[in-house]
């Protein structure tokens, strides 16, 4: 069946990163990756991710746009603990290595903070 052949391709999800100066970049990310990995693969500025996604550095901090907060869900306790080490934490603050890319967040908008710690 042609349709199922199509389905075996990894599904892609759009993610928009907005820099503090307003510049925005939209990338296609493979489902199953994390938002941090999608940022690194596309050389998004301001996502440092020193610990490689282990939720151990807080240098992949982003602000999830209001409209998307419910869809990405809440940070776990471990992530909240790590967010203590981030700078200028706000309502929509998340560690991008802890957000999985999936159809449910297709079109998501995240803002990169002015500084990573």
């Amino acid at each position: 069946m042609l349709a199922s052949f199509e389905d075996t391709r990894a599904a892609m999800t759009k993610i928009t990163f907005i820099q503090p100066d307003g510049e925005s970049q939209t990338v296609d990310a493979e489902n199953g990756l994390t938002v941090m990995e999608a940022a690194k693969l596309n050389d998004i500025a301001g996502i440092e991710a020193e610990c490689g996604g282990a939720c151990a550095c807080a240098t992949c901090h982003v602000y999830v746009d209001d409209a998307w907060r419910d869809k990405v869900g809440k940070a776990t306790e471990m992530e909240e603990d790590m967010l203590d080490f981030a700078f200028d934490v706000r309502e929509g603050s998340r560690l991008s290595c802890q957000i999985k890319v999936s159809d449910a967040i297709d079109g998501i908008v995240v803002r990169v903070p002015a500084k990573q710690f």
Partner: protein
Amino acid sequence: MAETNSIPTASESSGPIETDVVIIGAGPCGLFAVFELGLLDIKAHVIDILDRPGGQCAELYPEKPIYDVPALPVVTGQELTERLMEQIKPFNPVFHFSERIDSLSKGPDGRFHLKTDAATEFIAKVVVIAAGGGSFTPKRPPLNGIEEYEGKSVFYSVRKIESMRGQDIVIVGGGDSALDWTLNLAPVAKSLTLIHRRDEFRAAPHSVEKMRKMVEDASVRLMIGQVTTIEGRGGQLSAIEVKTAAGQEKIPCTAMLPFFGLTMKLGPVADWGLNLNENLIVVDTERFETNEHGIFAIGDINTYPGKLKLILSGFHEAALMAQAAHKIVYPDKKLLFQYTTSSSSLQKKLGVK
């Protein structure tokens, strides 16, 4: 890690400590170097700025699983550290924790002289730098101009509680360091404000409870918010601005202690005249020796074509380094290649025979 683990530490001594090898860094690679050197009858002292062994594994991810250490399908950072400590026990390494090696130079007899920030001195035939990503140092909050205040009115640790007497102190953070200092300094401070971004604390529950009591009897003020700016002159703080749910608030203060965890900074390693490439020490892949004969570098701190920053790479590097170190420590002894499985002399050293 439990202090009851009887890790041998150095006692106060006068004059430099003479030893075969000084290992800088007690991360997994420094620890395994003790083993490989020990098999060749080489004694080592190990120095680390942290107060316990394990490097990144102990400080950054003690509870997280590692899946690529050969023959251990899964092991946490803390477990790996404990297993290494057990493995090197027969060789009785001497640990010097909470000290940083600041200087390294060559003496007239070709041996190396090292000195820590606590003025402990060593003379060693061989130096093994297993400094990982560098010394663990407190994270500096990205507040404009904070550098100017550091050591004068912004502190990442306090050596003398008395120096804080009568001050208006602000402590920032929600972990054990922030809470411990809150409890310790509140009795001497003129005022103490604890600032944390949320009303939940990572610190041990009993210290949180004590802190809440102090808040109740008004000896401590707890503020939920984040510091946005600092004010002062010539290194002396006069106030900070805090963003809270209610808006911006200015708090007069004379000292601030921010606790945002630790990060790795290359530190003194950069000043020892070794060839560096992007903050990593350049080594060969036969001995893992630096441009200075007798100084080796293993683990995350080194670089060579194809380098992978993995624990298993550092273990391999330690084994080859030890062979080369043997030539320096025992220039006249021939080194026989032996297996731990079958060599009775190796087994004797390991205490299994």
